[in-house]
């Protein structure tokens, strides 16, 4: 038994039922031939990197299976070629590292770190949002609006006063230096 993986893109213009039935058709075809389906990954509607048959998106399916003989791959691909609903397909033979990789990915061992970080960030953001909401509720009650205004009024005169004083000092310094 050799492990294979086939990915195909179904025309997105079809109705949901038709899309599912095309995919199921090929999966049942594989089962009839004596294959053991390991995993079916419905990757869903994705944007294509370039248009195929004047379509800009496609429904991706990825089926991993174990086949007793390699000859049924030819039959499968012939069926894919004859089917107008299939836009693209790719069948790959998986080596032991690839099967291991796919297994690990399904178990969530690969890319786990990124997911953890993302989850932590989300939790933090939610907490902060909640805290902010709490603070936002507290503030207007504890500190009424008139309070913030006076500091602004005080700050302005100080700012105006400083520049007026400063130039005088620098001038005097310069004068002394010139004298020296």
């Amino acid at each position, binding site marked *: 038994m050799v492990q294979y993986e086939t*990915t195909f*893109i179904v025309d997105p213009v079809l109705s949901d039922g038709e899309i599912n039935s095309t995919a199921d058709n090929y999966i049942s075809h594989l089962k009839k031939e004596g294959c053991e389906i390991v995993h079916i990954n419905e*990757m869903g509607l*994705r944007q*294509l*990197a*370039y248009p*195929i048959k004047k379509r800009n998106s*496609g429904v*991706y399916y*990825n089926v991993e299976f174990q086949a007793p003989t390699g000859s049924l791959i030819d039959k499968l691909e012939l069926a894919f070629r004859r089917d107008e609903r299939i836009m*693209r397909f*790719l069948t*790959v033979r998986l*080596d032991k*590292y*690839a099967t*291991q*990789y796919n297994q690990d*990915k399904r178990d969530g061992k690969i890319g786990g770190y990124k997911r953890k970080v993302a989850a932590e960030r989300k939790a933090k953001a939610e907490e902060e949002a909640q805290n902010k909401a709490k603070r936002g509720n507290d503030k207007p009650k504890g500190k009424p609006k008139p309070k913030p205004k006076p500091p602004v009024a005080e700050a302005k005169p100080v700012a105006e006063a400083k520049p007026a004083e400063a130039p005088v000092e620098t001038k005097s310094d310069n004068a002394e230096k010139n004298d020296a």
Partner: protein
Amino acid sequence: MASRDDIKFLSNPNIGNNMKKYCRFKKFGIKYIDYKDTDFLLQFINDQGKILPRRLSGNSLKYQRKMATAIKRSRHLAMLPYVTDLLK
């Protein structure tokens, strides 16, 4: 006194220290490159969608070949473009 942090350099002072490139697949023990993982493959193509040479990516020959086939497969499935501009 001015410490080293206060000094501003006209050019990057780290230019002289040559950082040795390495093959990340060998270093981290990655045995298989998935053609469906486009985010990972994006690291090895330039903004025109061309595969970066070994001279830039630092990959060993074995994994450069595997990486190239993975990129070509994902191009076939329209997950990566064959030609573009401003990919990144």
